[in-house]
């Protein structure tokens, strides 16, 4: 098993594109090392992307924020300006694993691990985040909701990596929130995760919204019907009921001991409503 830690995007892409056999990108390693240990994967090549400066930086860009794919959860939490601008994204990333895991785990890895229950992904989708990819054919941008196709299936081509995410500039009175349900209080995988990002006008009317739902389908969903259900409202009772109905309507969850289909669908509605109310309060106080 070969290990390489190139210091440029081009170097990483060349290694991955030229690999024969299973090549894996290593960011935080909190999923990859577990899968290697469990013999789920047995790569011939591991490309560690943490030496590439673009994957490790948090920078302001065009009024928004660019976050490197290999920035850790702990680093996100320690960035006060980013936390103020995108509290939902940061709280979602910070729900992944323990303090120890937070010291390594990254949003790039969380997305590319390809789990429908990934905590940071619904929040990134709600945020309208765009993933910047680099591959043998050059760079391209892909909305986060289009990166994952299904469990462990990504839209990335051979040799392509996620370099960073761009969280867009947003108007005044905008904010976001993420909530998940787990049977414990900490250290578990989402049974349902709901991210909501919205903008309100001076009168408290929602002018724009995005909703991301995790762990209720084969991929993390962008739920535009749920967003439409609250745009134009003050998130009153009727709007909340419409939001819940729209969230429920898209759910196609699995049924297992951690949550039945009916339970997951109900919880998706509840969490979407609560996350929307939190985002709404945050947006109004911005």
């Amino acid at each position, binding site marked *: *098993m*070969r*290990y390489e*830690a190139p210091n440029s995007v081009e170097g990483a892409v060349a290694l991955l594109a030229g690999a024969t056999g299973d090549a894996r990108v*290593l960011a*935080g*390693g*909190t999923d990859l*090392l*577990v899968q*290697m*240990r*469990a013999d789920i994967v047995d790569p011939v090549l*591991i490309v*560690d992307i*943490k030496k590439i400066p673009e994957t490790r930086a948090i920078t302001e860009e065009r009024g928004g924020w660019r976050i490197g794919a290999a920035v*850790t959860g*702990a680093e996100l939490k320690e960035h006060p300006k980013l936390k103020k601008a995108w509290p939902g994204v940061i709280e979602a990333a910070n729900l992944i*694993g*323990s*303090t*120890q*895991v937070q*010291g*390594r785990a990254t949003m790039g890895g969380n997305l590319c691990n390809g789990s429908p229950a990934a905590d940071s992904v619904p929040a990134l989708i709600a945020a309208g985040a765009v993933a910047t990819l680099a591959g043998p054919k050059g760079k391209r941008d892909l909305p986060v909701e289009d990166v994952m196709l299904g469990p462990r299936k990504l839209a990335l081509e051979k040799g392509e990596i996620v370099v960073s995410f761009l969280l867009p500039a947003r108007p005044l009175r905008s904010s976001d929130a993420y909530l998940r349900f787990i049977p414990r209080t*900490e*250290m578990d995988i989402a049974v349902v995760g709901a991210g909501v990002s919205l903008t309100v006008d001076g009168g408290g009317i929602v002018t724009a919204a995005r909703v991301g739902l995790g762990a209720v389908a084969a991929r993390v969903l962008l739920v535009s019907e749920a967003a439409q259900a609250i745009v134009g409202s003050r998130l009153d009772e009727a709007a909340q009921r419409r939001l819940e109905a729209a969230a429920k309507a898209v759910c196609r969850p699995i049924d297992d001991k951690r949550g039945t289909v009916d339970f997951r669908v109900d919880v998706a509605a509840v969490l979407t409503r609560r996350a929307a109310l939190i985002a709404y309060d945050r947006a109004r106080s911005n």
Partner: protein
Amino acid sequence: MAKHHIQAHVNGDEVEFLCETEDTLLDVLRDTLHLTGSKEGCASGDCGACSVMLDGRLVCSCLVLGCEVNGGKVETIEGMAEGEELHPLQRKFLEHAALQCGICTPGVLVASKALLERNNNPTETEVRYWLAGNLCRCTGYDKIVSAVMDTAAAMRKG
């Protein structure tokens, strides 16, 4: 394939070692450097028994490859006491009987030290959440939490 030649600082000492790609930092610490204080509980990042500091961050050494620490700084339980002088956390753990079988203890101590270095006045909830990734099957956690809180109080008095 040739082994990786890695240089790093471990508990303040410059060390060099050879490792295979698949060797974790925990494997290297225990089997190559013979620092067996860090334990392997689950080998999947769930139990925290292998907790160490890597470049100032609390991590599970079972979730880091040995070759990833080239040029890095690692701190383990072996570096916690100063010679014969126990760290205040170690003394409080003894006073409070915050350990029984001891397998989780090195990881709990390393993690607790990391917390108190950031926050010397944590609430009980903060201590419990910070240590949520350190599993203990003996104590029921209350004595661990008391020992950490008591150490913090002693540190604040100076």
